[in-house]
């Protein structure tokens, strides 16, 4: 045991974790995946790889190690038809009124608006009994051209804007010109023409880097649009080693630190921040946080090692080159199927592959980890290294690290007791 000071909450967490013995390794069956397909309610479609911006920090740009084959491919109508033909077999018994979320992604999805429109019409026509909700993430450059359609179909629109002109200056066009004026002009027009839609459906995302900071970005977007943007740090995984120096010059090392508690201007951002997640995990370990009401009375006595990965096809990502992946955040090496060959999909093999991956990580890495029973790391994420082979986990924790982490959460709560109540406000009254 470590010699460091152990806070009271840390002591309680450690006692709980010691008592929580794993009963085995969770296994996904073919039937689980079929049930996921029957219930599938979260689909993301990358309609194009093309983009009309060339942001310095783009995860598909030179700073990162990207899929070498990624270029300017567009998805087509046939891929959409094939995907939903395949899913329709699983959706036959689905209850009338089921809600299915479709997110359009890119590149810049408005560059393939023809396919976005086609998909929306196709879904309405093919599945009249379901309720579709649409989301799109856009850089806003073409918003003037397509806003009527987005408003008509009640798209939830996430606009990427890093703050004022200087804050936004990493977001340049393919010719190297700043995008700020055009984007702001388009967003202003959207707000003026469709004020109700703007109020209800539009949100912003700002990436934090060396030319902005959380407080200034929050102030700018709040003052200009009355909205609280989501703040995202630069992705720090998968950096192309040759460009490490350039990356470091762009990185804002102070982007979102737990100490910046006051920068969380609303509950949602706080809840989803790393400190928010840590407090939620602490509550869960102590027995104060449950996924749903029925967990309070229908207990699951099994306590299996499962990591934070979703079981395959609980979400679905269709890439612009027609590949089906577990979600938009995972590497191309985890392709589950090709949309044009869904008749050959081998669900048992997908289950086996998933189980095999979990087993391999368990045996080589996770068994050594003090956080094994509270792990939320996705095995498909870039938090794992080793190119799909068993490698190193960025979250591998020894007992001293676990104590330090838990002590940090305790001290955070001591400094900001309000954090605890903001969490409850969000979930119970949010």
């Amino acid at each position: 045991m470590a010699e460091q000071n152990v806070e009271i909450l840390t002591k309680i967490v450690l006692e709980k974790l010691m008592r929580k013995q794993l009963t085995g390794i969770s296994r996904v069956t073919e039937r689980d995946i079929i049930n996921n397909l029957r219930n599938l309610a979260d689909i993301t479609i990358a309609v194009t790889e093309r983009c009309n911006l060339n942001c310095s920090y783009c995860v598909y740009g030179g700073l990162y190690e990207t899929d070498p084959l990624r270029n300017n491919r567009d998805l087509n109508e046939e891929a959409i038809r094939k995907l939903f033909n395949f899913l329709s077999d699983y959706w036959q018994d689905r209850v009338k009124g089921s809600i299915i979320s479709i997110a359009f992604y890119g590149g810049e999805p408005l560059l393939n608006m023809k396919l976005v429109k086609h998909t929306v019409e196709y879904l309405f026509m093919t599945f009249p009994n379901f309720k579709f909700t649409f989301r799109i993430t856009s850089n806003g450059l073409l918003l003037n051209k397509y806003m009527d359609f987005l408003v008509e179909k009640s798209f939830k629109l996430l606009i990427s804007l890093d703050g004022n002109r200087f804050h936004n200056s990493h977001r340049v066009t393919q010719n190297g010109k700043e995008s700020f004026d055009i984007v702001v002009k388009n967003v202003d027009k959207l707000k003026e023409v469709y004020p109700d839609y703007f109020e209800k459906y539009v949100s912003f995302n700002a990436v934090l880097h060396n030319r902005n900071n959380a407080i200034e970005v929050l102030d700018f977007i709040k003052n200009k649009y009355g909205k609280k943007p989501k703040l995202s740090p630069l992705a720090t995984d998968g950096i192309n080693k040759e460009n490490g120096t350039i990356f470091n010059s762009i990185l804002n090392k102070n982007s979102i630190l737990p100490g910046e508690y006051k920068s969380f201007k609303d509950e949602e951002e706080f809840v989803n921040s790393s400190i928010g997640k840590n407090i939620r995990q602490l509550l869960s370990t102590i027995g104060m946080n449950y996924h749903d009401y029925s967990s309070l009375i229908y207990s699951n006595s099994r306590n299996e090692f499962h990591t934070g990965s979703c079981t395959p096809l609980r979400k679905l990502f269709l890439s612009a080159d027609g590949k089906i992946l577990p979600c938009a955040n995972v590497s191309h090496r985890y392709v589950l199927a090709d949309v044009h060959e869904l008749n050959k999909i081998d669900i048992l093999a997908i289950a086996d592959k998933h189980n095999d991956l979990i087993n391999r990580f368990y045996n080589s890495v996770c068994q050594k980890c003090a956080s094994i029973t509270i792990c939320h790391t996705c095995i498909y994420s870039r938090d794992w290294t080793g190119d799909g082979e068993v490698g190193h986990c960025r979250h591998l924790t020894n007992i001293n690290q676990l104590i330090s982490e838990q002590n940090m959460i305790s001290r955070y709560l001591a400094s900001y007791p309000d954090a605890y109540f903001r969490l409850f406000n969000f979930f119970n009254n949010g």
Partner: protein
Amino acid sequence: MPIFDFLIFLTMDNKETYWVVIYPYVFIFNKGGKTLFYNSETGESIFSETNREILELSKPENMYSLLVDENVLTKSHVFRQIIEKHFGELIPFEKCNKKPVSIYPQCLIERQEEEELIFELKELTIMLTGECSLKCIGCDYIYKQCLWCHKKADVIPFNRIKSFLGFIPLSGVSQINIIGGDILTYVSIDEFLLYVTEFKVKIRIFLHYELVNKHLEKLLKLFGNYDFSLVLLINSPFIYEVLLEITRKFEKFKVNYKVLVSSEKDYENAIKLSSNDNLDIIPIYNGKNLSFFVDNVFLNKEDIINSHVSMKEIFAHKLINTNTFGKLVVYPDGQIFANVNKSPIGTIDDNIYKIIQSQLIEGSDWRSIRINKECLNCLFQWLCPSPSDYGIVLNVKNMCHLSP
């Protein structure tokens, strides 16, 4: 000066000061000048008069941690008990000048996406037919107190119930109870079982024990063809030898026995069957046996404090009705109930998502908790079980001997 620093400043005199820190699994209940500290890990209690320090400690914003001087500790035996019984810790201020924190116990249910709400539905009871040839005493009131068969005019066509049940694989349902009437007179029982066993959920068939001999051959055939358990419903008084004979016939199969008792004599008769592990004894109110209930079912203080109620159970009592939550009953006319003593909440032709959503948000059945005025003023409000059907039938709010 922030209030917290100010408090520290105030205590900076010659007296020894200490942090009293309560563990997060200890609940503090304050009612009418009395306080109950309840350790949900051990089931132990500490009672005390409520004082200023306890009220401060109970404030969620103090994070279960309070600075007190040694005078308070000397005078107040409750803090000594807290330390002795390991309900919390005492930390000298000189060893820890930063406020140590614990957490006030509160239950967080993480927000659920609308489409996930259907996973809150866990148990479905389906009355396929209300027809029955028996003339049991209590047929018109027993089912209002516990899950039991009863007569009703309708029979539900198989295709109608089949089209409703399509949502099961997409839901949290893990158990289907099939009741009647006389369920084995349902003409499509084979088709029905064939259909629902595909869902890989637990199936239970409820049958009155007096119907066993009439349907013995059919029952044995069903046992051979489908995976289900049989729940035999037994009214008191029953004939012991008849039941023993039935037990022998079904010893190879999954059978549970539920016996109703409405008096001490019934109870003594019923416990003769207690060698059977699969036996539930259920008290029943028949309109004449209130004293039996008052003496044997109503709780007193000792019953409550001697039962170990976990943190999870306390949260459940505060948020949901543990008797009805996650359960729906479908009648043969297609009506859906969250509680058969109340009005229907929809029909099988309605959107099941909407029915569940309404129960979760404003449901007077799934979310019925102890907030009547008697319980509101009681120290044991959240240690007590959720309101039950007995309370509705007896028309009482609290089935206990405690008068706050």
